[in-house]
């Protein structure tokens, strides 16, 4: 199975994570190209159904990326997203999809290296599991 088939959907808050992804591109910091970024106004906009839809459509992993805790433009958006990610994780576990396939990541707008690390980690995790 090649990497292109194991897609990662990243829901990125436009106040932080989306800018981080742009920054990573601008700095030519290369990361796995199976990531598909969807821009959202706040991590709090991401609903469980969006996460589940991604898996339904064959995504191998989902990242929800928002602002750092205590620094959400909309105060509670990132904490709500975290709860929803947890909820989705539990649902996925019940149907036998490993919990680590969906993850909440908190980023500040300048954390390009951290963004790359998170994406790489997810890609490697998926690759490792697919090989087994």
């Amino acid at each position, binding site marked *: 199975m090649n990497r292109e088939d194991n897609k990662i959907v990243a829901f990125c808050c436009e106040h932080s994570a989306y800018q981080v*992804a742009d920054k990573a591109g*601008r700095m030519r910091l290369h990361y*796995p190209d199976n990531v*598909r970024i969807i821009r959202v106004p706040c991590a709090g906009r991401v609903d469980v159904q969006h996460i589940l839809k991604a898996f339904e459509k064959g995504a191998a992993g989902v990242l929800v990326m928002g602002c750092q805790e205590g620094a959400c433009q909309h105060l509670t*958006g990132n904490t709500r997203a975290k709860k929803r990610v947890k909820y989705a994780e539990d649902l996925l576990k019940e149907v036998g999809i490993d919990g680590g396939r969906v993850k909440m990541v908190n980023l500040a707008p300048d954390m390009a290296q951290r963004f790359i690390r998170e994406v790489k980690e997810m890609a490697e995790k998926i690759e490792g599991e697919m090989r087994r």
Partner: protein
Amino acid sequence: MQVRIGIFLCDCGESLKNIDFSRIRGDLQRLEDIAFVDISHNLCLEEGVKAMTSRILAENINRVVIGACSPELCEHSFSRLLKGLRLNPSLLSLANIREQCSWAHEGDVTGKALELMRMAVNKARFLQPVEKKDIPVNKEVLVVGGGFSGMRSALELSRLGLRTTLVERESVSGGKLGEFESFHGIETTPEEMLSSTRKAVKENADIKVLTSAEVTRVEGQVGDFTASIGRGEEKVSQSFGAIIFATGYMTKILPQDFQLKPDVNIISQRKLVEMLQAPGKLERRPGTIGFVLDVSDENSRLPILSTLNNALAVKERLGSEVYVFCKSLKVDSEGVEKLYREARERGVVFLKFEEKPRISKEDGRVKVEARDVLLGEEVTLLCDSLVAEEKVLPPEGTEALSSLLNIGTDSAGFYQDENVHLYPVASERKGIFFVGGCKGDLDFTRTLADISSATMSIYKLLSPEKVIVEVEKVKVEPEKCRACLTCVRVCPHGAIQMVRVDTEKEVAKIYDLACDGCGICAAICPAKAIRFEGYADEQILAEVEAIGESL
């Protein structure tokens, strides 16, 4: 209406070499409802814009999809272009094929670019126009708190042509500034500053001052707040466009900090200021004065400012020996480093401790024992008066007020000051601002900056009399709403209220001006009754659907 999508691709001056644009064009043309796919070298330049304009006008399309650089850079100018062509800017869908595709990966990324384009096309099919409208706003401003920052804000607003009502809880305005003895290096004394400000407020016809009054209720939204102001028995209700809170702070000696009890020898900064103001009343001149500061928390600018100013004043007027016991000094306010150096030059002795000093009484004097970590020795000091550090705390009523307004406080109980996105004076609710001491950590220059910042924000908001908003970008579909109040509860900006539609039913309504467009309500609504145009469920799901689908 039949969807007709026009697609523009920009290869950024032919620099995106790892994307095969002609292949993408070929694949995209095969999709449904596509009017044309154009490749341009420079959509952001004049010739690119010209070509785009003529193409959009000629083809009579009603959705525009652009694959170019990051929306953070180009969204604004493309929206403007569409607006100029009488196409609703909401009918624009962007794919970021430069920063998040070509630049981010090595090797050929045509496949990813195509998929990003298809995600944008999928989303475009569901886009709906969002109209814009003028909303009238009330130009009066309510200022709560008649201290220096409150009065100063009112004066600045009046200079900008906005009328204000100043509400002060005490019987006289003035706040805490009068409690300072002097600001070292500034000619005008705090008292003079205060009296001149008071006079200016009194003479200003735009400012109405209500003393012994309190705000008991605030309803409504930015542009149209209704505040109930209680004044003794009488209650008045008035409408305001914006509110500035300048409720200040209070200071208190917290005895548990050093196991000390305030008495004749252990005094507060305020008591010391009283001593300094009337030195004639003292029985005898204190020979030694000690200060003790425990700077373990972050909100510590004020105690240091008053300690340094007062220590210098003591040196100057009483000529006593001055010792300052401290853990560390926060000297980041303007001029405080200089003040500290000056204090040392004038003979104020600073002693740095790690463990808290032991404080006891001996022969009617105060004995302070501490281990100075720089000297590495035990130091014992007998002083005539010990000035204890006063903690800066939120004033009484802060909690009640914050729950009244539905606005959070930070970890120390002050109005939120920690969120970088709201820094420095805005609150999570549009039209409500905080200045001065009620934000916790303050000094003089910061307060002045706050005041300018808040008044300018209000000027920007209210001066045009009308505010242009996008109507129902986020809206509740009344027939689906079950009035469960979940959205009212979660909205961080307090932008949702219940309104009656008929005798039987109340539904949630989102106020366009107060809404900041986060979409938390749309995600949480159990009935899925809230639609956020641009990020509606079907639009996000359509984007997700494009992933993994092959042509």
